[in-house]
């Protein structure tokens, strides 16, 4: 079945067995209700065991599911009157990033996010959610517009990374990303960023300089893909599973490192199992966080964002350590 993963197979199989038994008792003249009840008890325990101990590599798989909800899915559940705006006014409209204006529970906002496709055709159109410079420049244009009209900005992060290609380099992929980091620092409105799928390196960060950064429970955020890290570290991409653990890329890891502010809990088994319910979870945190940030003045918002990033990083002074020259 689509959207079911290796690690959850025991649950799926047991569930199948129970429904087979139910079907069987309907037609046959035997009473298996006590057995079914016993199995259902076991299923509950199994589900708890499996879904509460999801390994980093399993989270990577969930984050990459083709049917995992995308930016546009969440936009349709969370906002009213979404009006999409296209183009960077310089070169093109990059459909790997979507953005526009909308209302969130009555409040005018600007929404921007990476957008991947769910099937091959859409993925080709949206370049698998991997933006070119014009995508980042469109995002910046919309952020500046939000700044002008005093609208909070909500960013959804969901990309394998900025596109590595000839055209992207020619048009200044590095500059486009750097410019967004720089300009986002100066926005006078609240900026809230939510990683909903894969947060791939600089291409993700270019929408990620917010006052608050949240991650869905099964999303990832990393400097390099587990495959890339494995290729460099072990000279073999098949060690990706090890790399996923070593690189600390899951929401709980990043919470511990102080990179993100909070984890948004996911529907059991992953956001794809119930998009509406997942959107409700996001709405709760978005609403609470906006209420807090709207109390801050323009200067306070800028210094809040500055301090947020200023404090990230771990280092030592040489006098602290023994054994170094």
């Amino acid at each position, binding site marked *: 079945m689509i959207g079911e993963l290796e690690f959850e197979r025991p649950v799926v199989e047991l569930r199948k067995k129970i429904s087979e038994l139910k079907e069987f008792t309907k037609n046959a003249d035997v009473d298996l209700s006590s057995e079914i009840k016993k199995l259902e008890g076991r299923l509950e325990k199994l589900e708890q065991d499996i879904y509460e101990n999801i390994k980093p590599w399993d989270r990577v798989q969930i984050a990459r599911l083709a049917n995992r909800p995308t930016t546009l899915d969440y936009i349709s559940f969370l906002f009213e009157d979404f009006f999409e705006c296209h183009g960077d006014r310089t070169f093109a409209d990059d459909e790997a990033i979507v953005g526009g204006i909308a209302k969130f529970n009555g409040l005018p906002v600007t929404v921007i996010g990476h957008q991947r496709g769910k099937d091959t055709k859409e993925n080709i159109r949206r370049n698998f959610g991997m933006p070119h410079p014009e995508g980042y420049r469109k995002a910046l244009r919309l952020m500046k517009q939000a700044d002008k009209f005093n609208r909070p900005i909500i960013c959804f992060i969901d990309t394998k990374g*900025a596109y*590595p*290609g*000839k055209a*992207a*380099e*020619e*048009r*200044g*992929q*590095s*500059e486009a*990303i*750097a*410019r967004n*980091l*720089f*300009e986002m*620092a*100066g926005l006078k409105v609240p900026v809230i960023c939510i990683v909903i799928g894969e947060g791939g*390196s*600089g291409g993700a*960060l*270019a929408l*990620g*300089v917010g006052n608050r950064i949240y991650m869905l429970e099964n999303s990832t*955020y*990393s*400097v*390099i893909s587990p495959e890339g*890290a494995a290729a*460099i*570290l072990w000279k073999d991409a098949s060690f990706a599973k090890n790399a996923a653990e*070593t*690189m*600390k*890329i899951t929401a709980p890891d*990043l919470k511990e*490192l102080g*990179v993100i502010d909070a984890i948004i809990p996911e529907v059991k088994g992953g956001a794809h199992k119930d998009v509406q319910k997942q959107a409700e979870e996001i709405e709760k945190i978005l609403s609470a966080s906006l209420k807090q940030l709207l109390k801050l003045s323009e200067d306070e918002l800028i210094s809040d*964002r*500055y301090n947020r*990033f*200023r404090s*990230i*990083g*771990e*280092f*030592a*002074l*040489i*006098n602290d*350590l023994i054994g*170094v*020259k």
Partner: protein
Amino acid sequence: MALKDLFTKNQTKKKKYATIPTEAAKSDVPEGIMTKCPTCKKIMYSKELSKNLMVCLHCGHHFPMNAKERIDSFIDEGSFEEINENMISKNPLNFPDYLEKLEKDRQKSQLNEAVVTGIGSVGGHKLVVAIMDSSFRMGSMGSVVGEKITLAIEKADELGVPFVIFTASGGARMQEGALSLMQMAKTSVALKKFSDNGGLIISIMTHPTTGGVSASFASLGDYNLAEPGALIAFAGRRVIEQSIREELPEDFQTAEFLLKHGQLDAIISRLDMVEKISTILDIHQPGGELA
């Protein structure tokens, strides 16, 4: 006759053992005394090369320059005062072998980290400078590099002097994971604050400037400059070739390629660096008046 018989001649000629020439044998000269230019293949005295700021005497190829050589050649003699030199990396992810690798590079490069920061003057203009050194972990940016650069920007802000950075980096430091990614944001927000206070930022990209460094402070100068022939890129050439299977031009991702595509203000030879930067600093000197 079978097709493969056509190739018997080649087979008999084939050497039983491959001989791999050593690096020293390749350059045909004892290591240290002479240096061969990788571009024009000409051989010159290492001392003369060093005197010429590590620029090939024949073709102008720019050899990598370490932080000390850069300070000696760029900053007014005796004016350099290093700051935050005692900051070193920890191992926040408990990454295997990371601390050992750091220690090895510390011995090799005689530096505590991949960037040296300090206060000095160029052509009499006071400034704060950050100089990256690719001989330490390929100049990659972890927490310490991000922190030292941020502190340097803040120092320039405090003193009200320009901030000049020489970049040389393979990108983010993988061993520090998302913490190294966030240094891109940290340095960029610091530059924004400095810039909003009227601070002057000059970025000079040297070989190589790639990945997360290229996609943050290196590209955020009021003046984005580069040394001739420097590799400057977001994604590596091999990554692009393998994943995209696009054919790439020969000068792809060189300083010259970037200049052509509008990404740089100018390419400056190392031999003219002090003069050109002094000119920019001079024009930015407050109080210029119409005569």
